[in-house]
C-alpha cells in the first residue's frame, strides 16, 4: 500500500519482534500490526524507552522485562458473559447436543484472565453438565493464567457481569458463585476443579485433545489472516465431528480457507459446527 520506504519505526518494530521470538520463543510476528504497534508504543512510555530499538536492547539484556512486556503484547480486556445472547444460545441450542456425550471437553483458547472460563463453568453447572466436563483454559501469558486460576475480580465489575449473566438465561444470581471481600469478588474455587490451566500458543503449539466445544472469542482479531487460518486449522483438527466453535460477535470464518469445513450453527451468535467428513 505504501510506496515510500517503510519508516524506521516499523523496521525497529519488526526487529524487536524477531528478537522476542529468537530469545524467548514468543512469536508475535503474525499479529495485527496496527494494534500491536499501538500497544507497544504505550510500552515505550512505561519502560522509558525513546525507540523500539532501545526497548529491544532492554528486553535482550534484562529478563525481568519480558513478563512486563507481555502485558502490552497480549490484550487482557474481557468480561463475564460478554454478549449474553451467545451464552443464551449455548444454553438453549448447544447444550442439548453436548448432553448426548458421556464426557465433554471444552477448550477456552486464549483464556486471558479467566472471565470466559468462569462464565462457561457456571453455565455448565447450571445446565447439569459440569460433572462430566473437563475444561482446558489456555493462554500464552503466564500472568494472565495465574489470574485466571485465582478467579478474583474487582467488585465494581460485578454489576455488569451480573446483568450479563441474568440476560444469558440464568435461573439464579451470579452472587451465588462468589464471595465479596473488600473490593474483590472471589469466585467459588469448586468452579475450577474440573479445569486444566495451561500455557499454549495458537501460533506455535499443536492440538492436545479431542474437543466438543471451543470458545475463542475476540482473540483472532489480534491475528493477521494467515495466523487466523493457522488457529482455525488447529480448532478444526481438535474438534470432534459435529463439535462446536464459538467466536466473538464480530469475528467470522467467512474469509478463512476453512470456511467450507464448518457449518454456521447460530450465525448471529457466531457459533459454528465442524462439518461431516472433512
Amino acid at each position, binding site marked *: *500500500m*505504501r510506496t*515510500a520506504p517503510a519508516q524506521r*519505526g516499523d523496521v525497529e518494530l519488526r526487529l524487536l519482534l524477531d528478537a522476542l521470538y529468537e530469545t524467548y520463543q514468543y512469536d508475535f510476528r503474525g499479529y495485527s500490526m*496496527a494494534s500491536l504497534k499501538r500497544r507497544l508504543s504505550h510500552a515505550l512510555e512505561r519502560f522509558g524507552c525513546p525507540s523500539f530499538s532501545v526497548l529491544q536492547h532492554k528486553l535482550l539484556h534484562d529478563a525481568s522485562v519480558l513478563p512486563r512486556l507481555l502485558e502490552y503484547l497480549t490484550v487482557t480486556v474481557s468480561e463475564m458473559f460478554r454478549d449474553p445472547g451467545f451464552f443464551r444460545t449455548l444454553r438453549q441450542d448447544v447444550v442439548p447436543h453436548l448432553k448426548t456425550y458421556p464426557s465433554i471437553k471444552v477448550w477456552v483458547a486464549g483464556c486471558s484472565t479467566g472471565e470466559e472460563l468462569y462464565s462457561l463453568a457456571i453455565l455448565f453447572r447450571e445446565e447439569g453438565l459440569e460433572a462430566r466436563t473437563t475444561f482446558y483454559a489456555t493462554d500464552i501469558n503466564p500472568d494472565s493464567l495465574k489470574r485466571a486460576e485465582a478467579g478474583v475480580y474487582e467488585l465494581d465489575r460485578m454489576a455488569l457481569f451480573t446483568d450479563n449473566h441474568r440476560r444469558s438465561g440464568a435461573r439464579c444470581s451470579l452472587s451465588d458463585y462468589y464471595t465479596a471481600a473488600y473490593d474483590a469478588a472471589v469466585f467459588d474455587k469448586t468452579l475450577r476443579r474440573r479445569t486444566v490451566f495451561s500455557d499454549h500458543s495458537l501460533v506455535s503449539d499443536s492440538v492436545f485433545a479431542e474437543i466438543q466445544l471451543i470458545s475463542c472469542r475476540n482473540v483472532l*482479531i489480534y491475528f493477521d*489472516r494467515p495466523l487466523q487460518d493457522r488457529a482455525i486449522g488447529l480448532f478444526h483438527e481438535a474438534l470432534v465431528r459435529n463439535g462446536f466453535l464459538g467466536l466473538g460477535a464480530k*469475528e467470522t470464518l467467512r474469509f478463512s480457507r476453512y470456511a467450507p469445513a464448518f457449518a454456521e450453527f447460530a450465525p448471529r451468535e457466531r457459533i459454528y459446527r465442524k462439518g461431516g467428513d472433512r
Partner: protein
Amino acid sequence: MTRPPTQGSRAPRAVVIGGSAGAMTVLASLLPALPASYPVPVVIVVHLPAEGPDGVADVLHHRCEIAVKEAEDKESLAPGTVYVAPSDYHVLVEQSGYLSLSCEEPVRYARPSIDVLFESAADAYGAALVAVVLSGANEDGADGVRAVCRSGGVALVQAPKTAEMPAMPAAAMAACAQARVLSPRGITEYLCAICGGRHVS
C-alpha cells in the same frame, strides 16, 4: 523519519471521519452526496449507543449511493465504500490496506475511539489521508488529528458554531493549527471535490 508538513501534497487515498453527539445529522447529509464511484474508501467512527445489530451503518445505508457497511475484521479497504465501526470495537487501518477490529480498553472512555482510527490511518496512509472531525461533546479525535497533521495529511474540522456539540471540533482545532475549519456544507464540497466527485449544488 520526519515528513515535510506539506499538507495535502498527495492525492488522498482514504478519508476517515469521527464524530459523536450531533454527528449523525451531518453524516446524513454528507454521505448521500458521495457518488457510488467515489474513488477512495471512507472509514467512520461515531460514538452512539448500539441501535440493533448494525446500528449506524444500517441507518445510513438506505440514504446513500455509496456503499455503507459495518467494518469487519481483516476486510480489505475498497474505493466507493463507507466502513462504519461496530459498537464496542475499535477499528484500525493496517499498513497493508485492510481493517482490524480490537477490544482493547476504551480510549478517553470511547470504544470505538476516533483517536485509534485516525492514528492508525495516519500511520498507514501518511500524507495521502483526509481526516474529518464532526460535532461531539468530548475530546476524542484531538490526538488523532494531531497525528494526521504530523504525517502531512489534511485535517478538516466542523466549525464549532455549526456543531450541535462544539467541544470535539474545538479540541481538534486546538490540537492541530493547520486544521481547516469548515461548515458541514464546506466539508461535503471538499470531500466531493478532492476526488473529482460531483459537487453539491
